[in-house]
């Protein structure tokens, strides 16, 4: 550290994160989290979902308040468009996760960020979901994330931030790797 080092502040408490990492290495049980959401059909293709409680550090936890989300489909699907299309929530989740990662990694590496903007594109052939062509998958063909980042760092250091963020991202992992999904119905 030199005495001219500017104080980098991306608003991320890295000391707390590193402290948590150390503590959870010693107590791996506390690292087991469960994330939850609940939803209710409102009519048509409109569903309202909410998140509030989750489990972690060995006990029930709560967000500061309940967050609610409307999902629906656009009018060209003959829907009422009361909220985002569910697949768009996936893009929202990916953007939120990668960008949070970029801010944390930048803080840890002493890189001041000025702006971090992303656009996400995810082509999809809806012949899949409409059952027109069984060879077409339901989901995205691929996802492209385009970042525009203004930071006090070289192009290469910024590329490294984005790469490291992908490496540590939960949503990136969820999308790129298979997950067993169990959907059950309670009578």
């Amino acid at each position: 550290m030199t005495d001219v080092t500017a104080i980098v502040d991306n608003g991320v408490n890295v000391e707390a994160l590193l402290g948590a990492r150390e503590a959870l290495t010693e107590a791996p049980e506390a690292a087991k989290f469960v994330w939850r959401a609940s939803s209710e059909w409102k009519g048509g293709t409109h569903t309202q979902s909410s998140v509030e409680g989750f489990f972690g550090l060995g006990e029930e936890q709560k967000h500061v308040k309940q967050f609610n989300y409307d999902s629906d489909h656009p009018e060209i699907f003959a829907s009422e468009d009361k909220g985002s299309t569910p697949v768009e929530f996936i893009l929202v989740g990916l953007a939120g996760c990668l960008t949070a990662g970029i801010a944390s990694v930048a803080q840890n590496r002493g890189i001041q960020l000025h702006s971090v903007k992303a656009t996400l594109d995810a082509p999809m052939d809806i012949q899949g979901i409409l059952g027109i062509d069984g060879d077409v998958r339901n989901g995205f063909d691929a996802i492209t994330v385009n970042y525009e980042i203004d930071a006090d760092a070289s192009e290469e250091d910024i590329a490294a931030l984005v790469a490291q963020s992908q490496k540590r991202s939960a949503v990136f992992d969820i999308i790129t790797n298979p997950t067993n999904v169990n959907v059950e119905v309670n009578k």
Partner: protein
Amino acid sequence: MINVIRQLIRPVGTTDVVVIGAGHAGLAASYFLSKHAIEHVVLERGEVANSWRNERWDSLKLLTPNWQSRLPGFEYAGEDPDGFMSMPEVVEFIEEYAKFSASPVQTDTTVQSVQRHLGAYRVVTNRGVWHAKAVVIASGACNIANKPRASQDVPEGIASLTAHDFRNADQLEPGGVLIVGASATGLQFADEIRKAGHEVTIATGEHVRLPRTYRGHDIQFWMHITGLLNEGYEEVDDVSRARGLPSPQLVGSHDAQILDLNRLSDNSVKIVGRLMGISNGTAQFSGSLRNVCALADLKMNRLLAAIDDWIENNAVLCDAPERFEATRVDDNPSLLMDLEGNDIRTVIWATGFRPDYSWLDVPVLDRKGRIRHEGGVVDAPGMYVLGLPMLRRRKSSFIHGIEDDARDLMAHLDHFIREGSMGSGSRAA
């Protein structure tokens, strides 16, 4: 009960130190123990350099050039300092070292159990029991070839080999080969098997990309001269990560400047993402291929830039800096592969190795089965480990890296034995 009686009637030896394993690490430990005039024995389950003899594939050569092949008090004396030793040559080198160091090696002696006993250690072997104040574990880092859980789901009729099973391409059935893992091992297998005429797919997770030569010299020369190889375990950011890094994509040969995924692509090897599972005969690959390649490219370029800086600061005359082509990744790498449909006849797991501590009955393993140690000083009095990656320094896993580690640890052991003896008052140092 019968076991107890059987052990009671076996010969029992007492010594100060039992060294387990007569490879380069155990022999280096023995060299320094002799220097300290500490009585010891080196127990070897087979012959000297057993793993190098029996647990390596045919074409493997050391990843370090001959000039770097050096053990305490002993150097490479051949005519090709820039060449790379084949496994028979490594065995010969270590055999010569065993003679040179006159180590008290007992071959064909398999350690079956190490226990804590009356403030010392009891080492049970197939040829008797030893009692010792200290134990040096030098039994190797690569005893067991890792196989991920997905290996259980390889469809019947498709051969499933580990890196210990694979010797050469002649043992493979005709047809496609899926290689899982893209470290030095996986890349070398892919290159060799492709050249033998098989269709090859390589599943690629995080990897370390390195050129064989840079600016006119072997990469090991730069790693050595810049001091990188001497970087200590306490200096690196995340030592547990550094200890788990896959071996860099190197091959012991100057046939090409770099053996990387691009070179495999040029030879029509198919590059896919990390293998995540096999379900109903279909292999599933991660969609993270582009990022793991970007990470490896960035890290390689960071290392090359550090070397460039060092060259500039030290005004060394050598070839001009250069950068290698970024790893080429298909726009849409395959995510799924029906193994039988794609005529895959063999899957090879090049997914790393781990030590075997099944004989170690002292509670020093962590929940992941790794030995708990601080720079080789194990979390049990008088117990030491040698020859693991990044044990004390970046060079710890190399043959030439053992010297400094063994010197440090045997000095610690010497102190331990003298302190212990004085403490008990039984014997003057």
